[in-house]
């Protein structure tokens, strides 16, 4: 089966700085894939290379099987990119902007296109702004238009480069509900974000980049299992039983922390505490989280 995105041995250098040092990854059609990493890790360079905005020094990039250099027309038709920066054309209204963007991809004006633009506007809560000039929109509204622009030619592969950076909760919820729906319909999604909670909730697979190299790539669940643990937090009234100090991982005031691998361990641990004379007044079970995985991997 053809990969939606295929990156093979990609290297990119800016003078002495290496932005990408032999990156290889493959994203299957219909996947919701996250590309994570700190600032300067090479995420945006990889995305711009995919879009043909950056020429790489070595390696190949393909979108739906089309080489982004040799078959750039087919590759770009298959790709919709929501850029990180808010950019707009001050000469045109929202609707004009979307019609032009569709036109650049060779999609003629038609009732079908107008209906799709109306749907995009409605789904992104932009209907009442359709005929306003881009200059009159707030930053959040402009970002919604960027999302609509990326989708107007109905690309099978959608790349979102930090789409929720600095945007309000409403837009985040609107955007993710729409993107999830597109993913359910079969669109492949590649997401970069610094909001790791979003990546954890949305993405089925994750690649982590550090200094231009992939340091981890696996399903979200496998990464969580490998690098993070479930934690039982117990608040005690009174002292902690000395016999259990070895099994405790951390203490924060009256709260005591234990690593657990599944929920069956919770009852056993509580029973141990009670038998040792501890008086439990509160407890919580914290699920493994991506932030912990991220921090561990980036500091390795």
């Amino acid at each position, binding site marked *: 089966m053809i990969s939606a995105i295929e990156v093979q041995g990609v290297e990119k250098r*800016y003078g002495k700085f290496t932005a990408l040092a032999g990156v290889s990854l493959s994203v299957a059609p219909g996947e919701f894939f996250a590309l994570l990493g700190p600032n300067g890790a090479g995420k945006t360079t990889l995305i*711009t290379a995919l879009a043909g905005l950056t*020429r790489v020094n070595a390696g190949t990039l393909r979108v739906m099987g089309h080489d982004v250099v040799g078959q750039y027309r*087919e590759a*770009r*038709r298959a790709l919709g990119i929501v850029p990180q920066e808010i*950019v707009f054309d001050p000469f045109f209204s929202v609707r004009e902007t979307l019609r032009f963007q569709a*036109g650049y*991809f*060779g999609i003629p004006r038609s009732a079908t296109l107008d209906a799709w633009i109306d749907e995009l506007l409605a789904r992104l809560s932009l209907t009442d702004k359709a005929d306003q000039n881009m200059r009159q929109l707030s930053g959040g509204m402009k970002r919604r238009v960027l999302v609509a622009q990326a989708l107007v030619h109905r690309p099978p592969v959608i790349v979102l480069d930090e789409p929720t950076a600095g945007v309000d909760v409403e837009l985040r919820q609107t955007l993710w509900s729409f993107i999830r729906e597109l993913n359910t319909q079969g669109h492949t999604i590649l997401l970069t974000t610094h909001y790791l909670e979003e990546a954890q909730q949305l993405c089925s697979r994750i690649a982590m980049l550090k200094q231009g190299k992939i340091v981890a790539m696996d399903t979200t669940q496998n990464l969580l299992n490998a690098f993070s643990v479930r934690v039982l937090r117990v608040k005690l009234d009174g002292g902690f039983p000395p016999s259990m100090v070895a099994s405790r991982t951390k203490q924060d005031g009256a709260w005591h922390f234990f690593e657990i691998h599944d929920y069956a361990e919770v009852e056993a641990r509580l029973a141990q505490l009670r038998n040792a004379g501890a008086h439990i007044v509160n407890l919580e079970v914290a699920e493994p989280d991506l932030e912990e995985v991220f921090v561990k991997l980036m500091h390795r």
Partner: protein
Amino acid sequence: MTGFQTLLLKEILRFWKVAFQTIAAPVLTAMLYIMIFSHVMAGSNAAFPGVTYEQFLIPGLAMMSMLQNAFANTSSSLIQSKITGNILFILLPPLSHWDYYGAYLIAAVVRAMTVGLGVFLVGIFVADIPVHSVAVIIAFALLGSGLLAALGIIAGLWADKFDQLAAFQNFIIMPLTFLSGVFYSIHSLPSFWQGLSHFNPFFYMIDGFRYGFFGKADVSLALSLSVTAGAFLCLSAVTLYLLKSGYKLRQ
């Protein structure tokens, strides 16, 4: 519509939406030149026998306005898009270097021809302007504005800041247009300056264009046409090469 047609339409609308600035203002400027110079130079020796100064001036001014506006259209569009970042919208779609070249160049030529026509229409209220050959007029108008449009694309790609572009315009385009024989026949110049004018490609564009009106020129039509067409082809080749290589557009 194809991507090329869309980009062309967008580029035409871009200047049309601010037509006061892009069409009306240069026509007004040319009108002021015509009024002032025809008043100051009234009764001065005509450049060619049987041609008054006003008649001589108007085609030259029309061509000068066309050249300046063709350059301004492509260069300003590119630099604005680069600086605001919205150049991204045309770099992401499947457009080729020919699409960019054609759309930017044709839109600039449309603006130049509109301005030229405006200046000509103003001019015919001031003087009777003969027309010797419509084909020559149109050929030089198209080649001249095409040449400056291509130069504008090169300047727009090269410049990273507005002041770099302004320097290109003020220190190269403006002197070359003003010293190209718009306001005078080069035969009225001292021999040194006359000789130097022959190295100015703008001189051939204006001289050939003027031939279309009077059937007379400072140099032969064949020479003017060859220089203008040759310069247009050279600059177009450079422009296409830069666009294909992604010069300052794709890292």
